[in-house]
């Protein structure tokens, strides 16, 4: 999307013009969903987080500085909304399986040939606390100090959870090598696949995930 087009849409959104809102939503849907999918346990949860994020975008668009990149501003809102979602489900996050990390021999993992779906499937199998910290550190590039402040946890907890997340991911990668095309499902067996197209009520999807445990 060109800068001029974006500015026109922003102007329209500031006037609460529904068509402009929809066009802006559609234009950045893939980018925003890509972020939310990494933090959520499944597609439905990701949609819920993404819409909460877009709601903040539409309500705070007047604060957006038009001279700065819109994508960066939107991305920060999506990450912050994902963290808010994590915080609002903190009790659930800490009752999930948080265990001792099994140490796997270090091998070179960066050159593994795993596609987006396989990687996302692995990340979504992590307990919420591990997943959030792994995303913030490994993908967004935040430091342990920043993560500690964001999640209200100690630096030690952040480091320890990151280590456990990496170890769990290593196990999953190793297992997926044994069974090509099939990732290891240790936890969250009841997660709805992200490419599942059947419409499900968003309000009950998360509760179902929790109650089945």
């Amino acid at each position: 999307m060109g800068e001029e087009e974006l500015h026109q849409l922003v102007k329209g959104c500031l006037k609460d013009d529904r068509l402009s809102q929809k066009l802006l939503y559609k234009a950045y849907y893939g980018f925003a969903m890509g972020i939310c999918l990494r933090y959520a346990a499944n597609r439905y949860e990701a949609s819920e987080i993404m819409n909460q994020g877009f709601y903040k975008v539409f309500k705070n668009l007047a604060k957006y500085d038009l001279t700065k990149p819109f994508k960066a501003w939107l991305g920060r809102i999506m990450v912050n909304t994902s963290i808010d979602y994590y915080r609002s489900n903190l009790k659930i996050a800490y009752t999930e399986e948080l265990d001792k990390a099994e140490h796997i021999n270090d091998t070179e993992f960066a050159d593994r040939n795993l596609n987006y779906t396989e990687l996302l499937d692995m990340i979504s199998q992590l307990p919420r606390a591990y997943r959030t910290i792994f995303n913030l550190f490994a993908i967004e590039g935040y430091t342990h100090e920043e993560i500690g402040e964001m999640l209200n946890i100690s630096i030690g907890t952040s480091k320890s959870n990151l280590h456990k997340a990496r170890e769990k991911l290593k196990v999953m990668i190793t297992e997926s090598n044994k069974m090509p095309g099939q990732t290891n499902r240790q936890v969250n067996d009841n997660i709805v696949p992200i490419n599942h197209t059947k419409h499900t009520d968003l309000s009950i999807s998360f509760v179902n995930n929790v109650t089945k445990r």
Partner: protein
Amino acid sequence: MKEEKENSIDKLFSQGLSEPGDNASYREEDWDAMEAMLDGKKKKGITRSFTDTGEQHCCNVAAGYWLAVYLNPAVKTR
């Protein structure tokens, strides 16, 4: 050295998850939910909608009745 090896996991995921492709393809029902939020008709979570409705009130009345009838010493002695 160890950190470098562990970074290979980070690298694998940060690169591999950078392009969601079809996994993040647009869905009209998501916009419908968004529009409902913007219109102030936000779909509430199951817990919240339960507490907001008369069902909660009915449960409270039923629980109160049960406590009054079955835990009342006068009823027990009968």
